[in-house]
């Protein structure tokens, strides 16, 4: 589904443009009277096309485009700017330099708008798909060079059974997290091999918890500082299990186990890595892990509903979690429902 963002401070215009968007196949509109809220929304949601008015009291169309272009992953989204008159050449020149792709003049002609929007979205989607294919073929070359070892997958499965024998809830949590991480990786349009790698390696992301004492893991009350640190040690302990393994899956397992509690703003553990210094797979699993933890009951609290958990995670977008990954989680509602049906939450043994 193509998302068309429509920004205009006049609600009548907004309603009219949104209605025209419904005539474009496979498209939905997301309408905003406030350019500032539109920008916040754009940080966490993929967009195929933007339609923005020039004259708005909160922020001009040109300023909006400038801010929008600075959002990661939004530099090439087509933007159509709407002006009240076609005469202002200087304004149009500035707008083009800032990143406007085309102009429409009021009164907006619906047929002209539909044609323009469709063409832009087709081009945008082709470009995005071509880039994704190019990326995926590069990864395939890499993987062929090192060759995927079925033995790695067997090893991961064995480790899963070890977890199950010790703590069924922990093993289920890992399975749920891996499936959600897979859904997110798909929404991020990672290559098939990368998605498969993350989905496999994430199945043992919490294996380091086997080194944490049961009385700490099952404690129904607030942890002491020493206990908290012993729980945090699970990340490094997990990574250590796969240290120096160089096959793609095991190297990925080391990254994920070691860095899935690194927060996007650098406030996580164990290394305090920040932003893209955190491996992508670990950034994805961080979001999936948090979501699965929030939606499961714990000895010290009840499970949150899916909606509340998503809201909670959205609050962490930009500080704990990478915003576009949070957006990808939001898009994964049908996968979330499947996962919850497949691995229902077991009551904690307090």
């Amino acid at each position, binding site marked *: 589904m193509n998302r068309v963002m429509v920004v205009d401070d*006049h*609600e*009548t*215009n907004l309603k*009219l443009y949104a*209605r025209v968007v419904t005539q474009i196949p496979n498209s939905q509109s997301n309408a905003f009277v406030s350019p500032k809220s539109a920008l916040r929304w754009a940080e966490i949601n993929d967009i195929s096309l933007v339609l923005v*008015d020039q004259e708005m009291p909160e922020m001009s169309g040109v300023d909006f485009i400038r801010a929008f272009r600075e959002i990661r992953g939004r530099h090439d989204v087509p933007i159509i700017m709407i002006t009240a008159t076609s005469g202002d050449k200087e304004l149009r020149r500035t707008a083009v330099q800032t990143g406007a792709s085309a102009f429409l003049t*009021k*009164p*907006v002609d619906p047929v002209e708008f539909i044609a323009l929007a469709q063409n832009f979205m087709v081009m945008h989607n082709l470009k995005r798909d071509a880039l994704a294919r190019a990326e995926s073929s590069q990864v395939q070359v890499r993987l062929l060079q090192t060759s995927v070892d079925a033995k790695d997958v067997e090893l991961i499965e064995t480790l899963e059974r070890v977890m199950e024998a010790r703590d069924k809830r922990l093993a289920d949590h890992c399975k749920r997290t891996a499936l959600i991480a897979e859904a997110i990786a798909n929404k991020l349009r990672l290559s098939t091999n990368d998605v498969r790698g993350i989905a496999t390696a994430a199945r043992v992301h919490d294996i380091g918890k086997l080194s944490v004492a049961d009385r700490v893991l099952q404690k129904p009350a607030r942890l002491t500082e020493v206990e908290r640190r012993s729980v945090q040690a699970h990340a490094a302990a997990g990574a250590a299990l796969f240290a120096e393994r160089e096959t793609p899956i095991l190297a990925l397992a080391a990254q994920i186990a070691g860095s899935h509690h690194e927060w996007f703003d650098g406030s996580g553990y164990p290394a305090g890595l920040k932003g893209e210094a955190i491996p992508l797979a670990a950034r994805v699993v961080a979001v999936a892990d948090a979501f699965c933890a929030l939606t499961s009951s714990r000895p010290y609290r009840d499970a949150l509903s899916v909606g509340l958990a998503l809201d909670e995670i959205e609050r962490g977008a930009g500080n704990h979690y990478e915003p576009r990954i949070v957006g990808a989680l939001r898009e994964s509602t049908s996968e979330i429902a499947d996962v919850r049906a497949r691995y229902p939450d077991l009551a904690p043994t307090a």
Partner: protein
Amino acid sequence: MPDSAILDLSRLREAFEDDDAGIIELLEMALNTGTKHVERLKTALAEGDVTNVARAAHGIKGSSSNIGAIAVTRISAEIEDRARNARLDGVTELAAELEGAYVALRETVRDYRAEAL
């Protein structure tokens, strides 16, 4: 059919794929917000504030042209033009004319509703 000197429905028909109920809902919304904008214009005019007169007229012009409110668009464009040139002479009369155009538009929409729905 509404008087096309007041309301030209051709674009709205394309936008709404001839959905009369949708068009009427939008027009009624435009009438309500239009009234607010005219009040804003009159306040700015009473204060002799040319910048805000131009701004209010510009907003009215943009949204009224989108819905095909021909008379409203023409008068608000004239007001904007004068205010941008820092001229407020005759604008009080134009503002009264604008209010009249809204009254006519409201009646046209009412007749359209009675006829179509």
